[in-house]
């Protein structure tokens, strides 16, 4: 029995890992396509039909690039940087519930790698670790620009994690649990989605997620115009690709988090009114979940090609003087609303 469970989880981990990497891989193409389409051009379309083989071509190019480790760099940490970034990006998808139970024969499979009762906390821990990859890499490069990028990444991550955590506290006050599986299960159907009761919290979470992923308009850590690439200036070859890949995986994970926490995860409208069997509900639910995730990824890119980068002082002001007070106000409002609801309804 134990080994069967182990096998089941291993298969699930491999599948989730493969899907994550696949989506991250094609995000690079989609990003360039979206950029092209928004600038009245086509984007890459030479490698394969519609440029579908472009990610493979990019990967091949990265593999054959020369591997450069600067003489002044701390070699071990220089290599550890992208590794940590990639590792932390990958493990955060472990607690996300991809779907409900799938019954094959008499066995019931849960489509979640680990249902730990502190799922949200786990995500926070891993996301906080994520900045170490950037910091270590930028610091070990022995380069002023890289160090500036690393410092910026660290301070930005600290500032926005607070806003993110506070916005989530308001959500947790409503759900009453830290387990992601239960949070998603509570949002059954359409009207129970958390976005309807926590719109402000979602907005704060969204902004903070952009900042945590180092995406435009908060990509000050890599800021091409000021830091010529920031923390990854000295990186080349597959190590650079790892950093870029980690960014896309982070984007995927935070998209799935937003979909799970605020947009009902695998829940879709009228899911129990169509007379479908449980297995079909699960399968459609998984597809719906991925549709939501892809929509969020598109939104990330859409924002990237619309909004210019913040100045550094603007970034800090937004984080400390606007988002955190707003998040606190949101907590207070949620508390009052909960009490009013419990007393009078």
């Amino acid at each position, binding site marked *: 029995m134990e080994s069967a469970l182990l096998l089941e989880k291993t298969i699930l981990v491999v599948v989730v890992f493969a899907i994550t990497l696949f989506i991250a891989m094609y995000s690079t193409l989609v990003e360039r396509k*979206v950029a092209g*389409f*928004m*600038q*009245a*051009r*086509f984007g890459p*379309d030479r490698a394969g039909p519609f440029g579908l083989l472009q990610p493979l071509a990019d990967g091949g190019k990265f593999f054959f690039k020369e591997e450069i480790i600067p003489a002044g760099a701390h070699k071990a940490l220089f290599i550890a940087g992208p590794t940590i970034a990639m590792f932390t990006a990958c493990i955060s998808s472990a607690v996300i519930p991809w779907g409900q139970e799938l019954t094959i024969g008499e066995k019931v499979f849960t489509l979640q790698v680990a249902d730990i009762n502190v799922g949200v906390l786990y995500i926070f821990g891993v996301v906080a670790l994520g900045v170490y990859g950037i910091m270590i890499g930028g610091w070990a490069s022995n380069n002023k620009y890289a160090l500036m990028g690393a410092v910026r990444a660290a301070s930005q991550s600290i500032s926005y994690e607070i806003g993110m955590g506070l916005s989530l506290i308001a959500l947790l006050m409503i759900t009453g649990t830290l387990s992601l599986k239960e949070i998603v299960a509570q949002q059954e159907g359409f009207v129970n989605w958390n976005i309807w009761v926590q719109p402000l919290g979602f907005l704060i979470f969204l902004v903070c997620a952009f900042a945590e992923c180092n995406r435009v308009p908060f990509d000050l850590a890599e800021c091409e115009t000021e830091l010529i690439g920031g923390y990854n200036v000295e990186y080349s070859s597959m190590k650079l690709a790892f950093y870029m890949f980690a960014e896309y995986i982070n984007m995927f994970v935070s998209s799935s988090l937003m979909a799970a926490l605020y947009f009902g995860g695998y829940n879709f409208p009228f899911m129990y009114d169509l007379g479908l069997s449980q297995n079909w509900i699960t399968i459609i639910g998984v597809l719906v979940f991925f549709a939501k995730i892809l929509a969020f990824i598109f939104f990330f890119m*859409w*924002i990237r*090609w*619309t*909004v210019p980068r913040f100045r550094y002082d603007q970034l800090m002001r937004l984080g400390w003087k606007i988002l955190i007070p707003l998040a606190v106000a949101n907590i207070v409002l949620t508390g009052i609303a909960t009490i009013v609801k419990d007393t009078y309804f």
Partner: protein
Amino acid sequence: MQSLSNRKKVLEQKPMNFWERMYLPAIVRGLGITIKYFFQPKATYKYPEVQRPYSKNFRGQHSLKRDEEGRERCTACGLCALSCPAEAITMISAERQKGEENLYREEKYAAVYEINMLRCIFCGLCEEACPKEAIFLDGSHVPPEQLRKDFIYGKDKLVEPRFDYKKEQKTIA
């Protein structure tokens, strides 16, 4: 002082109101603009497959024409070289010998005819100057070369390929 055109507009720099300082409405408007462009037709020509059409009066590489019987029309009068503002054209004339009537239309012809494509500014004045309708700028672009001397085009590159229309008539019949 009064401005001459009366089109001057004085820009007022007001402090932003709350709506503007929120920044979100502006972002939403920006998102609307980018998504509008997302669905608009694209300006790109997918080059090797689709080529951008030339304008009707495009002036490209020169060609020296032949008449209906395949004889060179040029009589080496030198008016093209004279009219050329860039002094790109040179030629050496020669007299037509007996038995060469099927090669050259006039009694005098250009034995050497060279255009320096690096000097040429593709103004088309040679075309206008020619009394014999012998030169036209109806080709495409001048292709790139490695050496400067290769840009001096002689008759081998300029004269139209010979169109043997008697032979052609036979093959058609």
